């Protein structure tokens, strides 16, 4: 314990998250004075320099917002552009987009579950430290993560910032035999990912139940990746084009950061827990079965258990990837033709970390007049602070070092992607 009266726990540079963030809590006389999850990543101005660029640049440029979930940015941008142009991508091309998203979910989720999050539960500084005692587990995770990357390499050209996504489809579609080359390892991954769920189910979870308002994309026939309405556990059910009517980004003076809220209601939660609560019955049967086996109910409201749900989503992504490859017939054309016209397009897809909304205004040459990008971590920021406060209230007697670690873990429950959030957040670059 520091001071008897005032305890300050500050982490200047959060580890095992993507990007630069900080946390500070102040407790005085046993009362919480301040809880802050702050972001000091420098701004990069994506919305500004997208202005004047051709629509076709958007998937490549917005991918650079995040090295861990570039496909999400590519997908939200191409869907927004296609809506603006009145183009629909269907059949095998649509299936290939889902396959690419499967690859990103596997890679990103396994990275987070085992390399970034599991060390918190097992008491290690990192997965490298963890490997000294749990080498088999880390090797399993690396092999599982690799198959996600392999999908991205075959279909996207490379695992980080894939080059094969374009408005209308792809530059080149794979031969059947290229996808067949993934099957053997995916079959291994189906068993391995089920084992991974069982491993996460055996972890110790702090008690915490929070009545989140969950928000995710929802499609009547499939677990959400690319398309659908935006729904919430509080009854919201809207088209992506209605986003700005229902969501607002507010300034909170103490953090100088924009916090997303549902208008007139408050903070909300995006990501695996939200997708699971709102789309559970649409999971692949393999994922449903393992979720039932490890006792996940209709809705999971303990944010620490996001590690289990993320693992269930890995099973889903592996199983769906196998299904897509099994049904694959190479399309005659790699993309549908696109005619540019002036207009506005909206896209909402499910990044590994949650809903990612893009909106573009285009001129009649197909150049971007205005861009709006709302990443998942920006949306979760207020909810992360709410969780920090709840965890702090329940553990106020904990020793500083343990409490600090528990609070860090609370932030990592969200797999926060701070580089994503930053280009958009209002922030003060001040580390004092």
């Amino acid at each position, binding site marked *: 314990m520091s001071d008897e009266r005032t305890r300050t726990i500050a982490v200047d540079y959060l*580890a095992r998250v*993507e990007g630069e963030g900080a946390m500070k809590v102040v407790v005085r006389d046993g009362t919480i004075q301040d809880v802050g999850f702050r972001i000091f990543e*420098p701004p990069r101005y994506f919305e500004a320099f997208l202005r004047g660029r051709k629509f076709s640049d958007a998937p490549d440029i917005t991918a650079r917002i995040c090295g861990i979930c570039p496909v999400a940015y590519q997908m939200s941008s191409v869907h927004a552009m296609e809506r603006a142009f009145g183009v629909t991508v269907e059949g095998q091309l649509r299936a290939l987009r889902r396959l690419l998203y499967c690859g990103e979910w596997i890679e990103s989720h396994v990275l987070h579950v085992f390399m970034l999050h599991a060390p918190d539960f097992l008491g290690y500084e990192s997965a*490298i430290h963890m490997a000294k005692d749990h080498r088999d587990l880390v090797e399993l995770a690396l092999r599982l993560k690799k198959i996600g*990357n392999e999908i991205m390499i075959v279909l996207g050209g490379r695992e980080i910032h894939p080059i*094969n996504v374009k408005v209308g489809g792809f530059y080149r579609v794979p031969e059947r035999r290229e996808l067949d080359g993934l099957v053997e390892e995916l079959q291994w991954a189906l068993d391995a990912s089920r084992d991974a769920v069982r491993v996460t189910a055996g972890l110790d979870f702090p008690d915490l139940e929070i009545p989140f308002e969950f928000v995710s994309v929802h499609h009547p026939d499939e677990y959400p990746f690319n398309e659908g309405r935006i729904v919430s556990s509080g009854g919201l059910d809207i088209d992506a084009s209605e986003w700005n009517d229902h969501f607002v980004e507010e*300034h909170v003076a103490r953090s100088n950061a924009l916090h997303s809220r549902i208008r007139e209601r408050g903070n909300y939660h995006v990501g695996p827990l939200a997708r699971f609560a709102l789309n559970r019955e649409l999971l692949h049967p393999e994922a449903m079965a393992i979720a039932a086996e490890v006792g996940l109910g209709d809705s999971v409201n303990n944010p620490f258990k996001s590690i289990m749900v993320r693992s269930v989503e890995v099973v889903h992504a592996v199983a769906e990837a196998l299904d897509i490859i099994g049904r694959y017939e190479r399309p005659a054309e790699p993309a549908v033709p696109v005619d540019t016209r002036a207009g506005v397009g909206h896209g909402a897809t499910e990044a590994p970390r949650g809903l990612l909304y893009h909106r573009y205004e285009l001129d009649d040459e197909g150049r971007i007049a205005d861009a709006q990008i709302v990443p998942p971590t920006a949306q979760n920021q207020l909810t992360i602070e709410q969780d920090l406060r709840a965890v702090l209230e329940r553990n106020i007697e904990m020793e500083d070092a343990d409490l600090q670690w528990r609070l860090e873990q609370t932030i990592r429950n969200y797999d926060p992607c701070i580089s994503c959030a930053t280009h958009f957040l*209002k922030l003060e670059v001040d580390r004092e």
Partner: protein
Amino acid sequence: MWQSVAGPMTSRLGANPRPHPGASRLPRGSMAKPKLGVFKFASCDGCQLSLLDAEDDLLAVAGAIDIANFPEASREVVAGPYDLSLVEGSITTAHDAERIRDVRDQSKFLVTIGACATAGGIQALRNFADVEEFTAIVYAHPEYISSLATSTAIADHVPVDFELRGCPINKHQLIEVVDAFLHRRTPAVPTYSVCVECKRRGNPCIMVADGIPCMGPITQAGCGAICPSYNRGCYGCFGPMESPNIDALAAWWELLGVGRRDLVDALRTFNANAPAFREASERYV
């Protein structure tokens, strides 16, 4: 950029017959493993992720080198100095301009990884615009934003021992650089153009055969000619090759019907502030 760092790198890490100047700075004997630091500035995190994406090599790397400071992967921070520092991201704030000096002071060898660190990255597009206007577009309260008017490469601020190009870098090249460091040799990272890799893959030239504009002839190799292999033109994410003939390419693109504005946009993407691309884009704008 490469040219300016190739000399020092060769002398420090090259297989010289006499002990090279850097040798005395490397840890001696088998007791101490070299200490690795990974530092992030303005970036997307993708290049440092490449280390975690090297699934087949990660545990081997961790066995050969002490990962002493890598916040994306570990809570543990072992204080410097570091034998090898990998630096991702560009300098966009006054604070970061100070912080990179501190990183340099703590680093025996400093290697920059990726287009942000080697050329300012996509965020260097602000260098061609009014940053106050940019801030006003993105942020409702620009007064809260503290940001420099430019995004610049690490080498514009401190001496750099080696620059690894790419947006993102190629993970095999990253492992090659780390391996070269461990064995005190020059990394095998070529500076020729993407065309060489394309020929090696047996690709027909998409610019000649299909009339697709391609930046391959002026772009440094390293990706493995991915884009032409996927039936699209190279978009230059590894930055300019050594001595690019950009005017020749511009003339060719003109014959293919590419307008000046699209040519300038192509040069002003992920390596916009690399001197060769910047200088050409300023002439064509």
